């Protein structure tokens, strides 16, 4: 197997581990970090394909994804802070207001 295939496997593994972590971990911040891990895994596969294609558009798209990831985390963490301010716990099991 060559480089491209190998990196795609790695990307799959990273993404799956991030997905599992999202479901199994209780801490809100850890769940956020798992989402970042998923994003990174997908990013790796994007970079692999971009580098194969040779054109620069791939790099442009990767850069844009960086920006979006940064803004996303910029919003997500304040939201978590707000939630914790009200309920004073980072346990995801305590936030069941979406029930019903």
């Amino acid at each position, binding site marked *: 197997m060559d480089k491209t295939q190998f990196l795609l496997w790695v990307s799959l593994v990273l993404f799956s581990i*991030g997905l599992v972590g999202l479901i199994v971990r209780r801490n809100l911040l850890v769940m956020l970090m798992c989402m970042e891990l998923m994003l990174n895994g997908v990013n790796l596969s994007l970079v692999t394909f971009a580098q194969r294609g040779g054109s620069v558009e791939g790099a442009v798209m990767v850069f844009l994804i960086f920006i979006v990831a940064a803004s996303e985390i910029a919003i997500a963490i304040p939201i978590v802070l707000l939630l914790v301010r009200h309920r004073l716990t980072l346990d995801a099991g305590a936030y069941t207001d979406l029930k019903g």
Partner: protein
Amino acid sequence: MLEDLLLILFAAAAVAGAVLMLLLRHPMRVALALIATMISLGGIYGLLGVHVIAVFQIMIYVGAVMVFMVYAIMLLDVRDPSFTERYSRLLWPGVAACTVLAGVLVGAAWQGKIPLFKGPGDSFGVQPFSAAFLNDYWLYFELTSVLLVVAVLAAVAVVQLRSTRRG
């Protein structure tokens, strides 16, 4: 030869970091594992020849995102039920579902239903990168700055900072 070895090394480090993320209890240690994964990914990008992306990975992801995350972890008291009980009630169903999903994808790839490419790739440097951004994709470049401003505003609005000056 060396390149292939380094590639495998970095990949292994990334995967190890990811696995540690699942197993470690303290969120700070989880953050550090994630940082390790990200740095390894940066290394992989460098080995692929896309140095621009590798630099950006370290600068933006590790330097901004993870720093922010570490800051948030330090801000909050982490000795709460999520510290004692790492895993949610859906531990085994979750692991099972994701294993099945992964297995399905792997099986499909093995049978050739999902094409995985072979072949060499090209590398590109800073110069073509910036030329593309400033010539063809300048609109999206500007839009990203708008996006970042909006993100800052949203963060402020979410946290509801108030003016403390009175009188």
